[in-house]
């Protein structure tokens, strides 16, 4: 049997004893001390070489389940000419890694890799120069293989990197530019020509997969500190409900379980985990009435249209829509996309150790540096007294709520004076975690001569930034709100045609984006934030379904119709590649639509996200009697420029297709009165193995002459529209309300 989670603990100054998660286990780290942030201009801030030739890399980027950190390791190994096995990645620790803004927006490989690539190239230059001095051979005559610098003509005249380690400490200062996602450093060395790549572009195994398969990997849930207590939160039954009376008698049955209250944040803390769980379950609380009543579930779209717009953005006003629509064929439609839940595989978990000397937080949230600011604000201490250490949690697809668990843990640790590990129960995550915003759209299109003459659309959404993806203030956290902090730093974030969908060559276009106010101002289970490709899947569902309506009315083939309204060769390329792989034969949709038995159809959708282009084709089987939709096949053509690791990229896209298919078919947060009633996997169903497609094809379209663009999110964008368009092709009926549950499909069939 393997050793348990703890390794050695080292006493560190006046602060806590602490451990750091690394693949395979933990190692001790110093607790938070008032210390300066890493000096970004120092080469050794980014990477260090050990005397054994290992290369330790420091990055503010983190692994959230897509293989990103392996890709960054490949890039460093490539520039340094060391084997991938020599690389050790230290990620997302505010005390030791640069602030690169955490991860998000599918930018980690496109942008986040740049300073590492440049630092590694510079390190190679410095090491080779040191070797030149040592060997008495000019740098130009030296080459590097597997971390050994040698004479190009005489490999015996050599010195390994491990013998040159002091050279990096005295390297010239790097030039620093940008910040957060855009942070970059450059030295005088030029990175390699991609044509010379030997490690980048290869299908290497992810660094974290073997430890996870053999059970030696340790997640944040496995962090243990001496004297650590377990905490479980007790959430209100509904929005804004406040505890009026608490009966603690049931806690007597559960060891040393005790109630901790910070404002209206209630929790049970115990030295045994099960005592905390059972205590929180059994605590009896009388709550006030909810602070708000949500609209009836089915009336949400109407309610959103009836609300005043809280803000509005004239996104595009191109050409004269009114004139272009005159004597054209007019098509109008409305669409609705529901609230969706992060429902992370592991509910939120974090460990906090709050001491007078400093605060240390272990958490799997995506933006450790922003979380440091937020925890500092919550505890009213300077950020320099807070250290956030990233430890991987379950897959995180945005601001998932792990940050909220960190706030809970921080407040509880401060209250009890001991380290506290908080893990949420399933309902704390699914019902009370932050949500992706509901989105509705109204569209009016004008067709003339088989082409789009004009398009006029309004997309309304709840604010995707109500809870900022940067958890940098006390009111950002649910626990902070329960403790009395207002959410003072929302960001305005719309659902935007073109930015959150594909965009077409349309000469007369009027696209408006509007927000509506939150259904409740605080302590709401329907507070909204980022969930993978924040407004993309919903906005693209609306746009790409409507484009399909226009194609159908024009009696055009849906692939050809899209290509006729596109100019970018990469956009046209992914549509052609997807059609080719799916053996798509051109014809207008719904030609063979019937209404009996199980009907089959195919649909296509296209989207861009940043510079990445995606086209997805779905094939469905629809049981008309019960409205049940089964996706039988998906084909996704994906163009993200250059490819760092085709093996992990393929895995990420395939998984993203399944996750976005799940969102399209099943996922809808249900609510009643002031409560969210989607609390677990029964009431918030997701895809299960019997419903997987029979076949999924991922077609990677690669370009060696352009950089690697983002790939974590774009393929989630077209899936829902492709499925909805396939349903239309099968049955001749347009389902304009997502998800495509039996109920929504039956309603459309009988309309």
């Amino acid at each position, binding site marked *: *049997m*393997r050793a*348990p*989670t*703890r390794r050695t603990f080292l006493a560190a100054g006046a602060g806590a004893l602490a451990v750091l998660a690394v693949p395979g286990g933990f190692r001790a780290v110093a607790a938070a001390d008032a210390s300066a942030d890493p000096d970004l201009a120092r080469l050794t801030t980014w990477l260090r070489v050990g005397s054994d030739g290992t290369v330790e890399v420091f990055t503010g980027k983190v692994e959230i*389940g*897509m293989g990103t950190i392996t890709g960054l390791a490949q890039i460093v190994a490539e520039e340094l000419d060391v084997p991938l096995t020599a690389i050790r990645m230290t990620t997302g620790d505010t005390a030791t890694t640069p602030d690169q803004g955490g991860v998000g927006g599918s930018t980690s490989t496109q942008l986040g890799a740049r300073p590492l690539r440049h630092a590694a190239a510079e390190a190679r230059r410095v090491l080779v120069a040191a070797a030149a001095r040592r060997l008495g051979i000019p740098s130009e005559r030296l080459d590097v293989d597997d971390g050994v610098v040698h004479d190009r003509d005489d490999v015996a005249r050599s010195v390994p990197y491990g013998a040159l380690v002091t050279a990096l400490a005295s390297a010239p200062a790097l030039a620093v530019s940008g910040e957060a996602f855009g942070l970059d450093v450059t030295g005088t060395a030029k990175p390699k020509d991609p044509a010379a790549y030997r490690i980048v572009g290869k299908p290497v*195994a*992810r660094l*974290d*997969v*073997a430890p*996870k*398969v*053999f*059970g*030696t990997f*340790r*997640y944040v*849930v*496995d962090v243990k500190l001496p004297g650590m207590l377990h905490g479980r939160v007790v959430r209100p039954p509904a929005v804004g409900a406040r505890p009026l009376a608490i009966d603690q008698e049931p806690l*007597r*049955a559960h060891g040393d379980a005790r109630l901790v209250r910070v404002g209206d944040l209630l929790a049970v803390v115990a030295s*045994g*985990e*099960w005592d905390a*769980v059972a205590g929180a379950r059994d605590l009896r609380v009388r709550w006030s009435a909810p602070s708000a009543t949500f609209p009836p579930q089915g009336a949400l779209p109407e309610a959103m249209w009836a609300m005043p717009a809280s803000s509005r953005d004239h996104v595009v006003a191109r050409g004269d829509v009114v004139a272009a629509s005159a004597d054209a064929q007019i098509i109008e439609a409305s669409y609705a996309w529901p609230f969706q839940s992060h429902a*992370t*595989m*592991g*509910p939120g978990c974090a460990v906090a150790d709050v001491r007078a000397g400093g605060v240390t937080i272990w958490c799997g949230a995506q933006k450790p540096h922003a979380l440091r600011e937020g925890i500092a604000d919550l505890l009213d201490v300077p950020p320099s007294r807070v250290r956030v250490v990233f430890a991987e*949690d*379950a*897959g*995180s697809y945005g601001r998932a709520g792990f940050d909220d668990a960190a706030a809970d843990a921080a407040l509880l640790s401060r209250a009890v004076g001991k380290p506290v590990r908080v*893990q949420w129960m*399933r309902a704390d995550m699914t019902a009370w975690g932050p949500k992706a915003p509901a989105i509705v759209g109204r569209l009016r299109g004008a067709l003339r001569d088989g082409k789009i003459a004009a398009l006029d659309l309004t997309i309304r959404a709840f604010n995707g930034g109500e809870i900022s993806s940067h958890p940098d203030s006390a009111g950002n956290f649910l626990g902070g709100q329960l403790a009395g902090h207002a959410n003072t730093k929302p960001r305005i974030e719309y659902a935007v045609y073109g930015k959150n969908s594909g965009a077409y060559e349309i000469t007369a276009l009027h696209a408006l984006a509007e927000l509506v106010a939150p259904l409740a101002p605080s302590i709401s289970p329907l507070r909204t934030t980022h969930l993978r490709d924040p407004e993309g899947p919903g906005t693209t569902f609306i746009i790409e379904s409507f484009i399909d309506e226009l194609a159908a009315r024009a009696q055009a083939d849906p692939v050809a119709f899209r290509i006729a309204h596109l100019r970018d060769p990469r956009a046209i390329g992914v549509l052609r590649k997807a059609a080719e792989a799916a053996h798509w034969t051109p014809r207008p949709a719904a030609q063979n639509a019937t209404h009996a038995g199980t009907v089959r159809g195919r649909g296509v959708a296209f989207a861009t996200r940043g510079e990445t282009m995606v086209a997805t084709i779905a094939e469905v089987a629809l049981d008309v009697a019960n409205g049940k939709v089964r996706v039988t096949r998906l084909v996704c053509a994906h163009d993200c420029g250059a490819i760092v690791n085709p*093996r*992990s990229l393929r*895995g*990420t896209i*395939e*998984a*993203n*297709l*399944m*996750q*976005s*298919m799940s969102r399209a078919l099943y996922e809808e947060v249900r609510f009643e009165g002031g409560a969210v009633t989607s609390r*677990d*996997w*029964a009431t918030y169903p*997701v*895809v*299960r*193995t*019997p419903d*997987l*497609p029979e076949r*999924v094809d991922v077609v990677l379209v690669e370009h060696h002459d352009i950089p690697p663009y983002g790939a974590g999110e774009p393929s989630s964008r077209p899936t829902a529209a492709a499925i909805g368009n396939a349903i239309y092709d099968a049955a001749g009926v347009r389902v304009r309300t997502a998800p495509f549950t039996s109920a929504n499909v039956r309603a459309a069939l009988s309309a």
Partner: protein
Amino acid sequence: MLESPVSLSLTVDGRERVLSVDPRTPLLYVLRGELGLANPRFGCGLAQCGACTVQVDGEPVRSCTLPASQAAGKSVTTLAGLGTPEHPHPVQRAFLEEQAMQCGYCVNGWIMTGAALVDREPHPSPQRVREACAGLVCRCGAQLAMMRAIERAAE
């Protein structure tokens, strides 16, 4: 009501263990808390997702809802006891070959369930693999890769 701790004997990953626990405590908390075993992970506490799966006498079981007392006298296997890099279970080897995961938080349940299936039925059909895994959740969407891995292990 406070239940007195009882003595519980069981075998975990091949080692005899004698513990003093409240018999109603779910096995998950005994394995993680008392024995420091990390791989059965909490996912839902409702036996809906399978992240906490262990094998009890070779059968996949949800440790988040199984009272520890029901494991008395039985043999419990966790992921760490299933195989090692030197001696992997065929399902573990196949998960490596397929790189069958995204975050891997749920992977314990899929490997333990898949291994129990393959040990019992050496050549299950793809359909049978999907049925056997119907009770598992993967939020990241890695199910297709995990199905390929279990099918590969069964070849």
